[in-house]
């Protein structure tokens, strides 16, 4: 039941996320793209759980919890970064270049 469209949507969302991470410069946008990829994966899990059992749904809850923690830490890092460099442009943040 609607498995094909659901997985297709998941793939599209994931690809948008990847493209966003690759192409955008703004750290916050990249961060949102990462969230997008996580949720694309969540969608795939939920869709497949219809046929394969409830484990997929359990994993989705795990991912949500981890994503929430990640969002908290990530946003904190971005704020710290902004205070330090006064920019959120990723191209200007290259402290670890060799």
């Amino acid at each position, binding site marked *: 039941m609607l498995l094909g469209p659901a997985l297709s949507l998941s793939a599209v969302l994931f690809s948008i996320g990847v493209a966003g991470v*690759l192409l955008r410069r703004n750290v916050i946008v990249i961060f949102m793209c990462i969230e997008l990829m996580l949720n694309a994966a969540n969608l795939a899990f939920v869709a497949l759980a219809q046929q394969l059992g409830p484990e997929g749904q359990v994993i989705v809850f795990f991912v949500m919890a981890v994503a929430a923690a990640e969002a908290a830490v990530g946003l904190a890092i971005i704020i710290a970064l902004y205070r330090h460099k006064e920019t959120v442009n990723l*191209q200007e*943040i*290259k402290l670890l*270049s*060799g």
Partner: protein
Amino acid sequence: MPASVGWVWLIVVLPFAGFVANGLLAFLRPNSKNLVSGIGVGVLVASLLVSIYVISGVTSEEHGISHVVYYWSWMPVGDLQIDLGFLVDRLSAVMMLVVTGVGALIHVFSVGYMKSDPGYARYFSYLNLFVFFMLVLVLGSSFPVMFVGWEGVGLCSYLLIGFWYSEKVNADAGKKAFIMNRIGDFGFLVAMFMIFDAVGSLELREVFLSAPLTFEIGGATVTAITLLLFLGCVGKSAQIPLYTWLPDAMAGPTPVSALIHAATMVTAGVYLVARSNVLFAMAPLSSLVVAMVGAVTALFAATIAMKQWDIKKVLAYSTISQLGYMFMGVGAGAYAAGIFHLVTHAFFKALLFLGAGSVIHVLHHAYHQTHSGDDAQDMRNMGGLRRYMPWTTALMWIATLAIAGIPPLSGFFSKDEILAQTFSRGHDIPLMYLVWALGAVAALLTAFYMTRMMIYTFHGANRTGEHERGHLREAPWIMTGPLVLLGVGSVLGGVLNLPDMLPLSGWLHHWLEPTTISAKRYLIDTHLSAGTQWGLLAAATGIAIVGMVVAFRVLKPTNLTTPAQAPEAKGIQRLLANKYYIDQLYDTLVVRPLVWMSDKLLWRNVDDRAIDGLAVNGWANISRFVGWVGTKFQSGQVSTYVVIFVIGAIFLLRSIGQ
């Protein structure tokens, strides 16, 4: 074993205790000179008394068996078992008496000579340490223990030559002595390895007992061993070609020259050959080399001594020459004769050096009083000293007559014994006639240069200087006292070993026989007829008298000028005054190429370029380059990392999918 022999450790420990005590005083209370001299001289006298007690145990036995006292196991390594032990037999007894007896007299003399030196305590601690090592050398029951003493006396020699180290010349002389001795020590070490390889033991008694079974007479092994041992002797006893350190060693205080560089340390080589008499007797070629080197050195050094102006340099070359005589003796298989000359030489040469020390002390004092910078050792600044120093003059004359070989003084008998023995060997080995002839000419020169030294120092007009003359006087009794005792030894020493024709003949020879008996069977027994012996005696006396008379006739002290006004020497005189330019030759042939190679090749190329440049910095550069390549991947651009990450993820997924 007699009870007295058990006390042998005390002989060695006493000087060591003196070293420790004086060494501590040098740091803690350097000005307590009375205490220092009390300890320094006291331990030597005590050591001498204990030596006499110990030796009484060796003399009282009929056959003079050798005793070894073991203390502890020193190097137990598999087959190599080396124990610390002392060998007490008649040969080491003679050496012990010379070292502690003459040593004690020289210690007493030093009390006067070094009286006003700021390094007084340090001086006595070194001197005590030297006696300790010298006793270890002569008492060691195995080659390695002997070697400890051998190296130790070298160390003390170095410390005492450079005693006034604030002047670079003295420090350089010390280094020269040390380094030249290293060359000889290399020979000694390799000889020890070969002995262990062949015999399986380094105990003196075992080596000498099993030598006849192990080696074949004149074989390559025993010849190599003895030649390498002799290389050690050449270094330590200042023979050609390693003799040049001894004249430079005169930079040390004069009593040091008397003790270390005349009476004891430099005779260690003679002792080593005499101790290893079985080995040398089994290697006729090595024995001949020993005798030849000794004879050539005796003559060579005597010629140089004829033209030296420094009173100590004359005596230094004289010492080299006399050591050459001792090697002639032991090389000819006359081990007792070599040791006999060692003993008499210890008396008269110590006397000569200490007498010269008195002269230098007095002259130095006089120049010090008038603030003159003249050289207190140059004979051109002396002359006529007999009027001021009658005792020293008389005693120095006794020693001069002894070394020149005027009967019946000690040197006459010992030198004649050596010459007679080499002459008697000539019947079997014709080259020994050459050795004898060289020795005879050297004897002539000896009489000449010693008389020259006496004339220039003590006779004629005084050349010291108008103002200094008033300060000349006899040295104090603490210095002339030991001279008197050494003078008695120089006169009577010959009684130890009189020629065959006289009553009580060959006492030392017979006494030492137990230690040389095993060498006897390899030496062809030679005997000179009484007529020949009388002839040789007459010839030796004649040679000595001729040398002295010629010196009195030819030399005119009135023509002498002070060193500053002296005309330049010409021709052969210049050659002799410059010691045949041997030092310059060594400098050109050895020192400078070595310095050049070390500097230009080893330092600037091998060390700087190859090791530092290629090896050390090379690896660093390679690491740095690899790192540099690595940093190019670390752009710091997160997007670049993500691209690589995504590409990687795609490849991963593809491989999973298949």
